[in-house]
């Protein structure tokens, strides 16, 4: 920003607001992480203090890694998230391309229909989904979760991506057609790279709810082999006694993969959010 358009007072005020928000947003995460490294007594006596040499204790992590098959849970969560994400992006982008590129009867209606899922929470259909999964023998499989999450993520993906795909130059697609590229090549080689920022945005918005979801793993795949991390962490929460060390350690561990994925997408994400703001 140039000197003419910024004043120190306003800059300080803006930073103060942003810092305050950052502190509020990060506070719960920070509390979880610092307490995961403390002994049980310390968690309750000084919950807001960072671990000191006296209170430092890895008992939570030891419990998590010893009890239950936590690596399996992680693996399940990763498989479900990554595969769902891939399917949502692939099918969402393809549907968005069709909606934005081809003129056909009922185009607008189809677009609205595909976007309907944004307004209607998929959990309303839980009973029907469970019956469906029981009937098709998919209960206690990761496939069940992947199918549900793909359905859950598609409406927003189609909605956001079709807006972005409309901005891709028609001339470019036509040039490809004149050069003899197939519609698939045009889609994968010309259009997808140009909407990469939008794809990253959709990826993050899709990924986080899937990774954090407790509802569907609990209902559709609660067996030992198919447990996800969020469900796995529940075994430490008892009706009478809760192993807080283990719960906090499990949650701290659960943050790591999603953080890594986020960092991968974040550079693209920022471009995605600000795209269109400046031409």
């Amino acid at each position, binding site marked *: 920003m140039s000197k003419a358009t910024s004043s120190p007072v306003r800059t300080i005020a803006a930073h103060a607001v942003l810092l305050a928000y950052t502190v509020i947003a990060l506070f719960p995460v920070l509390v979880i992480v610092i307490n995961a490294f403390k002994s049980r007594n310390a968690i309750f006596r000084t919950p807001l203090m960072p671990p000191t040499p006296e209170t430092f204790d890895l008992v939570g992590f030891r419990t998590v890694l010893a009890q239950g098959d936590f690596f399996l849970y992680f693996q399940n969560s990763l498989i479900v998230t990554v595969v769902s994400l891939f399917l949502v992006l692939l099918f969402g982008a393809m549907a968005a391309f069709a909606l934005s590129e081809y003129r056909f009867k009922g185009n607008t209606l189809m677009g609205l229909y595909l976007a309907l899922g944004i307004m209607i929470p998929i959990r309303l259909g839980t009973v029907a989904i469970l019956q469906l999964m029981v009937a098709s023998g998919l209960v206690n499989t990761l496939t069940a979760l992947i199918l549900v999450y793909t359905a859950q993520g598609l409406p927003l993906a189609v909605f956001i991506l079709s807006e972005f795909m409309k901005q891709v130059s028609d*001339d*470019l697609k036509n*040039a490809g057609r004149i*050069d003899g590229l197939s519609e698939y090549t045009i889609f994968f080689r*010309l259009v997808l790279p140009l909407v990469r920022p939008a794809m990253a945005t959709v990826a993050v918005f899709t990924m986080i709810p899937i990774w954090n979801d407790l509802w569907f793993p609990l209902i559709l795949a609660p067996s030992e082999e198919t447990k996800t991390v969020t469900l796995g962490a529940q075994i430490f929460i008892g009706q009478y006694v809760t192993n807080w060390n283990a719960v906090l350690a499990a949650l701290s561990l659960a943050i790591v993969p999603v953080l890594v994925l986020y960092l991968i997408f974040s550079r693209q994400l920022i471009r995605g959010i600000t795209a269109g703001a400046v031409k």
Partner: protein
Amino acid sequence: MGSLKIENVKKSFGKVDVLKGIDLEVRDGEFVVFVGPSGCGKSTLLRIIAGLEDLTAGDVKIDGEKVDHVPPAKRGIAMVFQTYALYPHLSVRNNMGLGLKQAGTPAAEIEKRIAASSAMLSLEPYLERRPAELSGGQRQRVAIGRALVREPKLFLFDEPLSNLDAALRVNTRLEIAQLHRRLKATMIYVTHDQVEAMTLADKIVVLNGGRIEQVGGPMELYNSPANEFVAGFIGSPKMNFIDGARLGETAKTIGVRPEHLTVDAKNGTWKGTVIHAEHLGADTNLYIDTEKAGLLTVRIFGVYNAEPGATVYATPEPGKTYRFGSDGKVVA
């Protein structure tokens, strides 16, 4: 090798008729320019010829062959777009070669053609660059090069100069004209700029509201426009139209070009006051509010000093006025 015949082509988008029956013949080696105001259907017609848009009725024949069901890549055409439409992830060389590669042309032949056309357009230093590393003019030359290497029957240009700045536009226009002379290829060029149409075309097709208003050589359109629309569209500044009744004429409208009016401070046909004068150096445009003929634009070659508010007389050159009937067509 590259004649085109369009027979009664119609195109509708839903209920909107964009093209209302176009008949046109383009001979081998001709440079034809489609010109008209925005929304007249000129780009749609070009897209139909390219096969990027389906037609609602009629026929398009390239070299006598019906191409209604032939995909764009198999029609033997090449197209240059307004926004260049270069593949952002490919180098200039691969941008130019992609179409041939898709068609299964041997690599040696592709190399040869890229070398030839990049030499013609002085693109050799940029062959390994990506489009993002080129200036606007260079990008458009690459787009033209991409069309050249295909050695098409028909070159299609869709407003190729609109995104370039004024100086570059003149240069590129010159290059396209030279290219046509050298290749003797059939070219179809769409523009809304009548200067481009006049300078490039062998044959101009003036379109308006989905119909062809007139087809003819540049000077033919300038000297004997068929109707009021063509008369007003070709020529700059625009022709003056005067209500016939005000002049006591039988024709509905009288047209006279700004360059066919002379101005005198003492006497002449139409007395009026100068409203504004534009001094362009080589010529001067005067806007005169006349008592009898209304607001007139006069183009005077050279410098003419006239203050706004001064009284002057405008006189049309004898034999250089046009008479239009109530349907807009020229009448005797």
